[in-house]
């Protein structure tokens, strides 16, 4: 029976070549899209899940009530980890670590070599909690001493030539004006690509406590920017732990400040990282969902083609079905035959899809910044086979059950009973396909417009032509002298320095401030002179910082948002948090356009410089950067300058939007391509079915145009209906996406109209060419069969 089925399937493929190729291309493209998305989604899901403690590993977060609502912070007090380990017996290990983007960058010095490194400070059990592949050293001991450092293999090799004998050697780390000699106690292997945290070395948190002169025991009123991680003991109840930790601060603090600790499974940090008003509100998982939906839609479109063409050409296969029924074939055997046909088809498509994925992955990786690869992994094999099987069954289900259920007499006579329902199903499927295509077009359009808006929006400062680099060595220790000499270089318009990050500052330096009974969350940044001038931030009133005013180090410049949020009438001269306001800057967007401009303060701190900003004279950028490099090396022997443009930092904020934009383009193109393939097949089929009618009409004097109209009007109506249905849906979808931006484009009616017209034009082109071809056939050929 199987052999027989395969034979018939093969000959049917041969007989209906066009349909076969449309189905094959459609299903391959659909499967390739779905597989690529599967790879991406699987990679996203795997983030931070490789730690052996996953399931018991949590990060402690803190909810703080502010004037604007509840703020959830990943940063906690420095001694919280220790205190929790003591308070709660269900905790097996607890550790604290500084956030990876906390420091501007370290320099490691050993054997006359200087190497730049991203470093974190972490407490003793850090390597017990996280499986960072420790190659040398005992996980429980490597961070026990305050003078310990654990290096990455790469870093160890860079400093000591080889990672093998690095343990036991000493090195000096320097950061801004700090330094310490430490002993290498361990070496860890490469951090997996699916890790949120990336660093080159880990220093002991004890050393950090010493530098910061922290107290010895926990003060429960403290907070801070530090990450607190805990691992529960085997068998400990997560719900009980959550309840206990949730009420901890309330018990410890008698003050009326509303603060509460909460925990998040560490594996969820990457995908479920957003909190709104104290409760989880998604995060990157939204994109995972979005792309999963896109994968399903594209496959659905391909399946619809298969169903449509199968039922459309059913009349040509009715005889086969009728004969089989007459000969006593059971319904089951017919269903099995059709399903086998579609499943075989989808497995054939899978082979092509795998080739397509292999070809497209480099490009996809370039867009998504991932390193996905087709490899023989059980999950991938299972997914590919499962996907192909499911696609085959889905695509084949409708024709199989529909055709096998027809009564034998009607089938034998080639008469389709109930063809009205069949027709409606087919129409419905075409409408659905084109609805999705229109939706994709609108999304692509709106995303492009919003990204263009983000690019061109006046941010309140001029991000172009500004380079940023980290201050290290002598530049960090004597920032005033360094900046003064820097400004004298030809091609340098202005220069300034600050501590922290300017674009999209992490949520550390922000906190509640009070002014005349009003409270507001305020971000601040310590800067040197010429910050406003270098960045081109406009001063609204008052003055900028100046060395002429000795007292400036106790004074601040605020932004308009701060003035507005406190409702200050005459801000200049007012005292806020013990500091006098000397100037008001016009609002500028230091955070991404997703966020509203928040109240902001510039503090003058001319001696603390982590990052240097230099405005270059336009047109001479490369030449000036060369000069900067020379100057940096001369001022700071042993160090080399690694610079980036401020614009890159700005663009990086919208990396995921840009990715979504580019991917949406590709997937929209896919959706339209596959939909059009279906339409192409349907038109070809209609033309063939109506061959005789076309012949008779032509004999009676019909023009070619009227034949084209005859063949295309029905499908045009369907596409029209699809457009009408798609518009409200797409409006809701893009509106929701745009709502994520505090600053966004307005939704113009012509985005939707344009998308509809594009879909219609593409559809017409597809239908039209087929209809035109049909209209030009010689009528005698059409009628000769008679």
């Amino acid at each position: 029976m199987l052999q027989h089925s395969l034979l018939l399937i093969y000959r049917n493929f041969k007989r209906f070549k066009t349909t076969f190729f449309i189905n094959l291309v459609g299903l391959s493209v659909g499967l390739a899209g779905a597989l690529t998305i599967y790879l991406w989604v699987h990679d996203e899901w795997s983030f931070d899940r490789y730690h052996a403690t996953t399931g018991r590993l949590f990060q402690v977060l803190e909810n703080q009530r502010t004037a604007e609502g509840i703020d959830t912070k990943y940063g906690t007090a420095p001694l919280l980890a220790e205190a929790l380990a003591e308070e709660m017996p269900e905790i097996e290990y607890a550790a604290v670590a500084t956030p990876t983007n906390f420091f501007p960058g370290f320099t490691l010095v050993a054997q006359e070599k200087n190497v730049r490194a991203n470093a974190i400070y972490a407490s003793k059990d850090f390597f017990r909690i996280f499986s960072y592949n420790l190659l040398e050293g005992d996980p429980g001991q490597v961070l026990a001493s305050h003078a310990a450092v654990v290096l990455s293999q790469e870093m160890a090799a860079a400093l000591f030539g080889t990672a093998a004998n690095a343990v036991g050697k000493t090195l000096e780390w320097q950061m801004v004006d700090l330094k310490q000699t430490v002993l290498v106690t361990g070496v860890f292997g490469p951090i997996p690509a699916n890790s949120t945290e990336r660093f080159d070395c880990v220093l002991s948190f004890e050393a950090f406590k010493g530098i910061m002169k922290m107290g010895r025991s926990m003060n429960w009123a403290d907070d801070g920017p530090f990450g607190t991680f805990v691992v529960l003991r085997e068998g400990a109840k997560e719900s009980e732990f959550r309840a206990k930790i949730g009420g901890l601060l309330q018990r410890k603090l008698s003050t009326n400040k509303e603060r509460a600790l909460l925990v998040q499974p560490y594996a969820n940090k990457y995908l479920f990282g957003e909190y709104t008003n104290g409760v989880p509100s998604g995060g990157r998982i939204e994109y995972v969902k979005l792309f999963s939906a896109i994968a399903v839609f594209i496959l659905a479109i391909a399946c619809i083609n298969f169903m449509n063409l199968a039922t459309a050409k059913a009349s040509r296969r009715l005889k086969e079905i009728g004969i089989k029924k007459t000969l006593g074939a059971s319904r089951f055997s017919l269903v099995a035959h059709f399903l086998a046909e579609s499943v075989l088809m989808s497995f054939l498509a899978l082979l092509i899809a795998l080739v397509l994925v292999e070809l497209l992955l480099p490009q996809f990786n370039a867009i998504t910044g991932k390193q996905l690869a087709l490899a023989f992994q059980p999950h991938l094999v299972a997914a590919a086979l499962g996907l192909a099987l499911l696609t085959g069954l889905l695509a084949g289900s409708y024709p199989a059950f529909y055709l096998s259920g027809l009564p034998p007499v009607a089938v034998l006579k080639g008469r389709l009973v109930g063809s009205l329902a069949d027709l409606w199903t087919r129409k419905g499927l075409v409408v659905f396909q084109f609805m999705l295509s229109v939706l994709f077009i609108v999304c692509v359009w709106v995303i492009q417009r919003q990204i263009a808006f983000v690019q061109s929006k006046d941010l309140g400062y001029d991000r172009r032509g500004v380079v940023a680099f980290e201050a290290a060595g002598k530049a960090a220790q004597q920032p005033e002298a360094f900046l003064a000499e820097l400004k004298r270089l030809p091609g340098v318009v202005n220069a300034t320095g600050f501590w922290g990050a300017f674009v999209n500052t992490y949520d550390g330096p922000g906190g509640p401030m009070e002014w005349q009974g009003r409270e507001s969350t305020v971000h601040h940044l310590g800067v040197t002179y010429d910050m406003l001038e270098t960045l081109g931030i406009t001063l609204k009133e008052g003055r900028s910082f100046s060395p002429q005013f000795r007292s400036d180090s106790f004074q601040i410049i605020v932004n308009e948002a701060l003035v507005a949020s406190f409702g200050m009438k005459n801000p200049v001269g007012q005292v806020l948090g013990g500091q006098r306001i000397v100037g008001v800057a016009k609002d500028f967007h230091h955070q991404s356009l997703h966020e509203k401009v928040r109240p902001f303060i510039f503090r003058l701190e001319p001696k603390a410089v982590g990052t240097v900003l230099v405005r270059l004279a336009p047109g001479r950028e490369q030449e000036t950067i060369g000069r900067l490099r020379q100057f940096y090396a001369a001022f700071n022997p042993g160090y080399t300058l690694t610079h980036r443009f401020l614009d890159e930092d700005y663009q990086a904020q919208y990396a995921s939007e840009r990715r979504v934009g580019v991917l949406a383009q590709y997937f929209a193109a896919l959706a339209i391509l596959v939909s059009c393939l279906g339409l192409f097949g349907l038109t070809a089929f209609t033309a063939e079915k109506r061959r005789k009618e076309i012949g008779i009409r032509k004999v009676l004097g019909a023009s070619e145009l009227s034949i084209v109209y005859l063949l295309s009007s029905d499908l045009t109506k369907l596409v029209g209906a699809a457009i009408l249905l798609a518009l409200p849906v797409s409006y809701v979808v893009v509106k929701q996406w745009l709502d994520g931006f505090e600053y966004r484009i307005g939704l113009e009616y012509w985005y939707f109209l344009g998308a509809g017209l594009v879909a219609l034009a593409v559809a017409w082109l597809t239908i039209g060419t087929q209809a035109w071809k049909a209209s030009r056939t010689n009528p005698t050929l059409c009628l000769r069969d008679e």
Partner: protein
Amino acid sequence: MIKIENLEKIYRTEEVQTKALNNVSLTVNEGEFVAIMGPSGCGKSTLLNILGLLDEPDGGNFSFAGTEVAKAAERRRAELRKKHIGFVFQSFNLIEELTVFENVELPLIYLGVGAAERKEKVAKVLEKMQIMHRRNHFPQQLSGGQQQRVAVARAVVNSPSLILADEPTGNLDSSNGNEVMELLTELNEAGTTIIMVTHSEHDARYAHRVIRLLDGQVVLEHAHV
């Protein structure tokens, strides 16, 4: 073998109701060769479809080999069809994607006959129909007479007790037509019951008995001698 009583079949469209069969009663005994005749639209094909369990009557009784099948489910009817009935059509109804051999093999596949036995049976029947040399050809490569011989071969390959033939010579020239009628007669002589719908008085003469239908009713029944 077949006994029908007061059989009714009504075709309905939105405006009209047509009684295709109106109180038809008849009996066909085992080993008989019966011809059903009548003008176009008299209901003879409808009757044949019901007799072949391809269609359901709207009223009356139908006993097939001793069991009542007028209201039998499609599954049961399919079962009876494949075991007991062979069909020969005017338009041959061969599957175009299958070769002569594969077309004839099909009923055996549905009966679950093993491959070796199938091969043997098909070869035997093709020999008998003198079409063995064409076994690897596709239907469209054969003449009408050859195609009908294949169709007859397919109808008899599983040795059914009943063969239903719907205008078996309608698409054939007279010499090919006679050949097919000879084949049917041979089968009948070997014990197979045959019911044949035909327009041709010439063909009807091969039958033992002729039933004439008009407007869905049996108007005359007479025997040939």
